[in-house]
């Protein structure tokens, strides 16, 4: 009797399976986003949610060209100090408020002037706005700034309903109101974020889901297990080591794109007394360390060849890559010669790395390679918040750290390499480089900008305050029923044209 009841109960449990409807797209994220307010948020994973929640003034193509989105056209004045933008006239926010030039002005004002705004440095060059008419706005700059359009393709260009920002202020993130394909429905911290299709979206015909559910699943193995079990339709940041097994699985698809960012070794050249090491004081020693590393082998060993080796802030596939400075092949003899020249044979250096196992593997491979050139590396693993603090305070010799990357090349280099750069933790300072990087910001002509970056590269290849190692590849794994997904180098999941059965 009891056995029968138990088995019936068990059977009922299993049969009430939650079928995965195509009407609801379920996406597994690698982390839980922070506050859902584009002006206050700081995480990469939050931007994935914004891609479905908040449309921007402009967008990018997979080739990183800037294309119209909420803005239809734009024009620079002759002196490069005024940007005139024409806006769409058929857009409403999720709360029914109209999108117009006044809304854009309110948004820019908030990004600039909200005390908690994390976007201030990105819109620093904007001095004010001028509403010309309902759908035309002029944006005035303090100096010519070529990076502004790329900023408008990210969080600084996301348009929030002014009515909502005024009503909710700093708590806008608890119920965000934007103008994207989906509107905010519900969020349970560390559990799920649910968005529902916005019926009045101006490109509603490209959206094939009634709702999107984002599920943060931190453990990589469990995230993949969820996909395999059919509990989610797609996951982001599949580990490189899982690529082979997913490719062998007929029911799953893989999509990849080399990211905009980099990972490397930041060297303390002038940040407190810890910089007074042979490595920190002599560029020849830094060049030697770089020459001792076989970047392609590193990619093979740690990432099974899936990522991309690198020696510049931009990947070799980027239009901004300086082809005259290709990835150097490993040359232990040359490294030893440089060390001898610098009088620094058999030195010991300390490399700090986060407790992330993958980062640890990277540094271990570098350690083995450097040992052959006579550089002994002592690895110190630190929890990430501690690592950041010590890096910022200069309490390190070498730090393994990366950057998630920005569409505009300036975002990958300026704040790290200029004397007053906000995230210049190596405290590298070379006025010649400053001039070139500042100049590159002012021209909107791509050829002119690239020439400046290439000239800066020539100096930086000598000085080498950062040894670039590789570029992460964004890897998505999808159920084979999902179609229409386009991989973007910024790692975002754009749902226009995507459908699932």
């Amino acid at each position, binding site marked *: 009797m009891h056995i029968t009841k138990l088995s019936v109960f068990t059977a009922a449990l299993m049969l009430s399976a939650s079928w995965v409807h195509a009407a609801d797209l379920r996406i597994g994220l690698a982390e839980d986003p*922070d506050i859902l307010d584009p002006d206050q948020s700081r995480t990469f994973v939050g931007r994935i949610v914004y891609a479905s929640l908040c449309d921007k003034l402009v967008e990018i193509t997979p080739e990183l060209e800037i294309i119209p989105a909420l803005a239809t056209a734009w024009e620079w004045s002759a002196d490069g100090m005024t940007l005139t933008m024409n806006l769409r006239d058929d857009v409403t926010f999720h709360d029914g408020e109209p999108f117009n030039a006044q809304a854009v002005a309110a948004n820019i004002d908030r990004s600039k002037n909200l005390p908690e705004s994390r976007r201030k*440095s990105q819109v620093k060059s904007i001095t004010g706005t001028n509403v010309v008419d309902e759908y035309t706005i002029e944006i005035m700059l303090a100096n010519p700034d070529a990076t502004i359009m790329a900023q408008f393709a990210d969080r600084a260009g996301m348009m929030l309903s002014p009515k909502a920002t005024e009503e909710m202020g700093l708590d806008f993130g608890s119920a965000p109101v934007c103008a994207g394909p989906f509107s905010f429905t519900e969020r349970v911290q560390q*559990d799920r974020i649910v968005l529902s299709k916005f019926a009045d979206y101006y490109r509603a015909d490209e959206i094939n889901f009634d709702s999107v559910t984002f599920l943060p699943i931190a453990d990589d193995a469990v995230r993949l297990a969820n996909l395999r079990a059919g509990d989610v339709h797609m996951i982001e940041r599949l580990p490189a080591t899982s690529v082979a097994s997913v490719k062998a699985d007929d029911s799953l698809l893989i999509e990849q794109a080399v990211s905009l960012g980099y990972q490397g070794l930041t060297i303390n050249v002038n940040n407190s007394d810890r910089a007074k090491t042979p490595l920190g004081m002599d560029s020849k020693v830094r060049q030697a360390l770089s020459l001792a590393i076989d970047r392609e082998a590193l990619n093979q060993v740690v990432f099974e060849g899936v990522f991309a080796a690198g020696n510049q802030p931009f990947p070799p596939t980027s239009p901004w890559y300086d082809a005259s400075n290709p990835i150097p092949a490993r040359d232990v003899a040359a490294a030893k010669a440089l060390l001898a020249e610098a009088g620094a044979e058999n030195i010991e250096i300390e490399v700090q790395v986060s407790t992330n196992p993958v980062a640890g593997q990277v540094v271990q491979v570098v350690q083995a390679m450097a040992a052959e050139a006579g550089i002994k590396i002592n690895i110190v693993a630190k929890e990430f*918040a501690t690592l950041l603090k010590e890096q910022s305070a200069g309490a390190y010799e070498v730090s393994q750290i990366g950057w998630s990357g920005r569409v505009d090349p300036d975002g990958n280099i300026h704040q790290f390499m200029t004397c007053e750069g906000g995230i210049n933790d190596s405290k590298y300072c070379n006025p010649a480089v400053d001039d070139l990087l500042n100049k590159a910001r002012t021209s909107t002509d791509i050829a002119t900008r690239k020439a400046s970056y290439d000239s800066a590269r020539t100096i930086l290849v000598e000085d080498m305050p950062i040894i670039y190692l590789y570029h992460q590849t964004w890897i998505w794994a999808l159920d084979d029923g999902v179609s229409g997904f386009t991989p973007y180098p910024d790692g975002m999941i754009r749902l226009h044209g995507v459908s699932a059965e």
Partner: protein
Amino acid sequence: MLSFIGRRLLIAIPTILLISIFVFFLQKLLPGDPVLALAGEDRNPEILEFLREKYRLNDPLYMQYFHWIGKALQGDLGMSLRTRQPVLELLGQKLPVTLQLATMALIIAVMIGIPAGIISAYHKGTWIDWLANIVALSGLSVPNFWLGIMMILLVSVKLGWLPASGYQPFFEDPLQSIRTMLMPAFVLGTGLAATLMRHTRSAMLGVLQSDYVRTARAKGLVERTVVIKHAMRNALIPIVTVVTLLFGELLAGAVLTEQIFTIPGFGKLVVDAVFNRDYAVVQGIVLCTAIAFILMNILADALYRVLNPRMNDQ
């Protein structure tokens, strides 16, 4: 009884206060700057300084503590620095989840552990006892996170019987809620079942050898009555104590299990809060779990007195 509980509750207050001071200062000792962790990639000096001022991180430590405890006594536990959600609200969201996981894990532990302990004690020295001990030792030794991942791979991926991770609130969809919690509760419960089995076995062994049990058998009572009505009743006393204390531990949040199964309970919350240096959240959770644990201790002592009338004479 009431005066006993009253006295214990009174002593609990300075204990909780001491714990709050201890945790507060321990957190501040952690290397790493909360503001850097907060600022993320856009960490330029102006925003860092602004955040430090705003969250009073430049104030002397004792002032920060008094500011926090002052507000806490008024019911305001502060705000998560990461998401601006009030800590009290966060706790309110996570408590039912942790309660559900703890309850289900305990039920599984009790359903497996106690009968196993009784059978093992009764058949002491035989192959049944030997087998039960091996199973118990395996349950204690197998790491939670390994068992968890293995179960996900087997039950969710290969067999497709249960969801791989996630959580459904109980009152929204009870059946689905139990389905999402079944594996994590099982993983937690089997570890506890092993402990419980060992305790039950020792308690039963002690009782089965006592005089009154021999008397009951001599009186000619059926074996089943002897074991259940006479022996177990007394063996239950230490077992109930252990169960209550285990429940208190479970309420602290099963960190590893929650990480693996993505159960949004206390454990996951406190781990993320420590990594993000989200001080207010950590303090709020520690306060909450300290109170829960102390209450469970008081409950265990009270139950002990109820079950063992001889204690009341002391």
